[in-house]
């Protein structure tokens, strides 16, 4: 059985935003730090590092999850998606991102990437998600700027646009 010792760096391979990625890291490194410091994808933000604030939320195997609560050693074989994957091409916003812009769904932006990853997964799984379902999903995120109402409005607007067949 594979035993990865405590002091060395070990190869961990996973899929990241559709491409295979291999890093050499210590077991104890958090996925949030792997993404930011080893790979350089700084769209994923780090807030509380104990799973409460939601800033580091990414998608793991299709479901939103906290990157700060996943150890590098656990990431072997995972399918990971970060906020960088939301735009189809540079300089263009996704429907969800555009809705956040139009409805002032962010101010400082620290919590935004995590919220986008939760809502992106939710609207993919439940295109008709009700406002109550959206609010429940958002309860896993702390935002200290907006008071949440503009975020809910942005999410509802994105849902309606996507239902009409937006990009």
């Amino acid at each position, binding site marked *: 059985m594979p*035993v990865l010792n405590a002091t060395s760096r070990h190869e961990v391979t996973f899929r990241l935003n559709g491409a295979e990625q291999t890093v050499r890291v210590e077991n104890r490194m958090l996925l949030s730090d792997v993404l930011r410091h080893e790979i350089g994808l700084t769209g994923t933000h780090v807030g509380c590092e104990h799973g409460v604030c939601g800033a580091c939320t990414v998608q*793991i195997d299709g479901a939103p999850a906290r990157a700060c*609560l996943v*150890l590098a050693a656990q990431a072997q074989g995972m399918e990971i998606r970060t906020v960088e994957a939301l735009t189809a091409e540079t300089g263009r916003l996704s429907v969800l991102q555009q809705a956040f812009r139009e409805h002032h769904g962010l101010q400082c932006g620290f919590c935004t990437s995590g919220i986008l990853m939760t809502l992106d997964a939710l609207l993919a799984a439940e295109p008709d998600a009700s406002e109550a379902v959206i609010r429940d999903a958002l*309860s896993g995120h702390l935002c200290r700027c907006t008071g949440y109402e503009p975020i809910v409005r942005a999410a509802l607007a994105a849902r309606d646009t996507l239902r009409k067949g937006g990009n």
Partner: protein
Amino acid sequence: MKPARFSFVRPQSRQEILDVLTEHGSDASVIAGGQTLVPMLNMRLAKPKVLIDAARLPDLARIEERDGELRIGCAVRQAQLEQLPNLVTKQPLLARAIPFIGHIQTRARGTVCGSIAHADPSAELPLCLIALQGKVHLRTRRKARTVRAADFFLGMMSTVREPDELIEAVSYPTAAPGTGFAFQEIGRRHGDFAIVAIAAIASREGVSLTVGGIDDIARRFDLGAGQDDGLEDALNDIAWSLNARDDLHASAAYRREITRRLGRQVIHQAKAEAARCQS
């Protein structure tokens, strides 16, 4: 807020998990979802020398329904149980309590058995196991044993699990016909640890009330027929028996008052549901 060093083992079978546990005992921790263990590692409240990854074995990620029980393997995630078809008829108490566990983002990875192993006094899954009088299945390299929920939890984050034992599964009884279930919880915010969490089960045999978030473990009380006559006194006795303490989140008096009020509510809800089932 970064974990101390540990070696990481990827067992290929249940037997290999048990071998590593035998070898390392209390120096080792089993990790599956990590939604409680990783914060403890990050804060260095836990510093295991060896982590054993139990999340990858399909044999351990099964929910089996047999003999009036849902047997939930140690790699089953909370979201997997939440999404089990017809959970609301198989075991309504679980269906109603699970949405209170953290958030969808933590339920996607956190496991049912991990919550049982951690034994937080305000956690919903240990409360449901105590309320439903479920069982915990433990195994070492040499022997297996099954412990009743009432005997498993010793106190705050403390259980009878020996260092070389794996919680290989837990069993929640499925709902017997004509039984009503209710669950309510008060917290500072949705998804926070419960200030008071409370479950009631009503059947022809009688009414039980289980209260979490106050004492060191969730506590279950039999209330006989749960008649309105005398219920106030019974709930008041329960509220005062729970060793409620003041803390940052709520005073002891507030916790007692919530126990009395929510207790009455869930008992009425459970009895109403039972009456509907029986009519």
